[in-house]
């Protein structure tokens, strides 16, 4: 059937047969190549982190996808469908204009008004020198306490927004903390310093996706409730007089920390 076979000659059967399978095979291969190519591109255009983030976001239960404006009490109920990236949200201003009403006390955890908070439980502080300090927010600190090990990126490494900024090990659990903003790491701190990373963004960063003020209160409150729910099997009371107890991972080793950490750091 192929020219290299003795006594070969084309017949209609050959043409039909070969073209059918040629078509099928090329479609299959084309599909595979196309997929690989797009993947390659995603990395080239620094979309990989975003894609992964969206994937994870897509798998969050609805209860954990509440819009910041709902948390701030600006709207009764709203689900986020932009992967918590308000920079791309067309209705942001419309809702942001509405008055917030959250009793500051509702927050089970203390938070600072001049910090910006990321849904992955990191805070961002803009410093005088144009860099941004990134740290673990109190909620996360209450959970993790002092991590057994921390793996920070090297200075001059690039971090991407919602990409993995640093990882921590605690009681055998691997915790991957997401970067709240993109940029170059110019210095690294740690649990014993007041920051984990100092990041120098490229140009003026848009930090609209970070929570601030009342949103944070509502958000943290919701997070604490969520924590309550997830640890309700562990009968221990998490909040004592409205404040979260420290070092929960040590005090409550029996709890399903897998689930807690998954929802806390939005990383399956």
């Amino acid at each position, binding site marked *: *059937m*192929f020219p290299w*076979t003795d006594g070969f000659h084309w*017949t209609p*059967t*050959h043409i039909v*047969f*070969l073209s059918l*399978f040629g078509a*099928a*095979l090329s*479609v*299959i291969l084309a*599909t*595979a190549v*196309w*997929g*690989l190519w*797009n*993947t390659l591109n*995603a*990395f080239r255009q620094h*979309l*990989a*982190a975003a*894609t*992964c983030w*969206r*994937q994870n976001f*897509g*798998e*969050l*239960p*609805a*209860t954990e996808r509440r819009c910041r404006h709902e948390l701030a009490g600006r709207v009764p109920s709203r*689900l986020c469908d932009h992967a918590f990236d308000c920079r791309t949200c067309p209705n942001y201003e419309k809702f942001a204009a509405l008055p917030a009403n959250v009793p500051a006390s509702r927050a089970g955890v203390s938070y600072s008004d001049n910090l910006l908070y990321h849904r992955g439980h990191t805070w961002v502080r803009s410093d005088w020198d144009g860099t941004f300090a990134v740290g673990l927010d109190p909620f996360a600190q209450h959970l993790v306490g002092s991590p057994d090990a921390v793996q920070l990126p090297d200075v001059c490494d690039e971090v991407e927004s919602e990409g993995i900024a640093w990882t921590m090990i605690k009681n*055998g659990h*691997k915790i*991957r903390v997401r970067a709240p903003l993109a940029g170059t790491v110019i210095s690294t701190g740690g649990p014993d310093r007041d920051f984990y990373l100092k990041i120098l963004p490229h140009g003026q960063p848009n930090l609209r996706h970070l929570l601030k003020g009342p949103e944070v209160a509502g958000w943290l409150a919701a997070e604490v409730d969520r924590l309550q729910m997830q640890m309700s099997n562990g009968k221990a009371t998490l909040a004592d007089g409205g404040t979260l107890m420290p070092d929960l991972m040590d005090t409550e080793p029996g709890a*399903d920390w*897998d*689930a807690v950490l*998954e929802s806390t750091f939005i990383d*399956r």
Partner: protein
Amino acid sequence: MSETALIDRRWIARGAERASTSRFLLWLFPWVCLLLLGIYAAGLCFYYGLNQTNMDNRFAFGMWIFLDLAIIAMGAGAFFTGFLVYILKQTDLKPVLNTAVVVGLTCYSGAVAVLMVDVGQPLRAWFTFWYPNTHSMLTEVTFCISCYLLVLILEYIPVLVQNRQLRHIPSFLVFEHQAHKLVPVLAGVGAFLSFFHQGSLGGLYGVLRGRPFAYRQGFAIWPSTFFLFILSAIAVGPSFLMLVVAAAEKITGQTLVDFGVYRKLGFISGVLLALYVAAKAIDTYVWLNITSPRLGFGPWDYYSYWPLSSTFLFTATVPLGLLPAILFIVPRTARHRGLLLLAAALTCCGVLLNRFVMTVQTLALPTLPFDPFLKYIPSWQEVATFGGVLAYGVIVYSLSYRYLPLFEATKGEAKNVSLD
């Protein structure tokens, strides 16, 4: 929790309920043994040659070919579900899609593996691509199956990279994201290829004019068995899928898909099965009264032998064909999970029996006027290889179930929908 258990745990999707590591290993153990035995038996066949089997010049095809035809029919669930979900947009079947892919992959790879043992010179298997004879049904089968195996692998990768550890590698996760966009295309190609080779497997015997028991007239180059095999395959595919999911639910003690999916699969099986039985009846009538007499063979040349007598024909069509079809379709019976599963089991048995008759009985029946009716009992090597493939299937599915979100992936969406 022991150290290994902890490591094992890290590979299991968060929030997924799975058996303890020790219990899982306990479950795997017998299957692994069976697999090893199968590999040993296959090794014997490779080393000493096919004289290890009880096949002979008259029974040139034996248990293995029966196995191939059977499991490829069972694997039809893979392409057919994909076809239903992506082409016919039956999205409510999505929950079983991953299972379908895994089942299909194991069935097809298993079949190909057995074929490699079955041929006398495996090192020349690729000659089929090198000097293909386009008039041979077997060429068609070989091309289709190898292409479709590629498709199944491509469909399996996205499921695979959803494993908790693998997904931490960004490129995998991104690829999965991309692959999801392509699955419909693959489903389309897969459907095309599968329709072809399911048919060609039927044609394999239908074209044998030297074997009047199997020979059928047909349409263009395809004998009627070509179409009957497609029909029976897509009829049994969903049934088998149903059984697999049910088995998984029974073993894990969890509810993985809601009953609606069962009913839908059952209904599809039922309708197709009814069609198949009707078609088969017509085909048999035509063959017994026109095709076969033309070749000088009367019904008694086939049906005067016990045990492979006409009872087989009857069993395959009525209790294992019509009955399950009715159970599937009639709402009053379809409501009962038990009956539904019974019907599914009957359907599978029916198709198995049909494949058995096509492969084994065809060869047992004499063609030459003075020839005896032959018997054939497979050797332990053949049976062991068979068992090996079975074990391989179970192991792959168990591992996939444990470490991949076969059902969880779709559960999330379900929750989501319920909340709004």
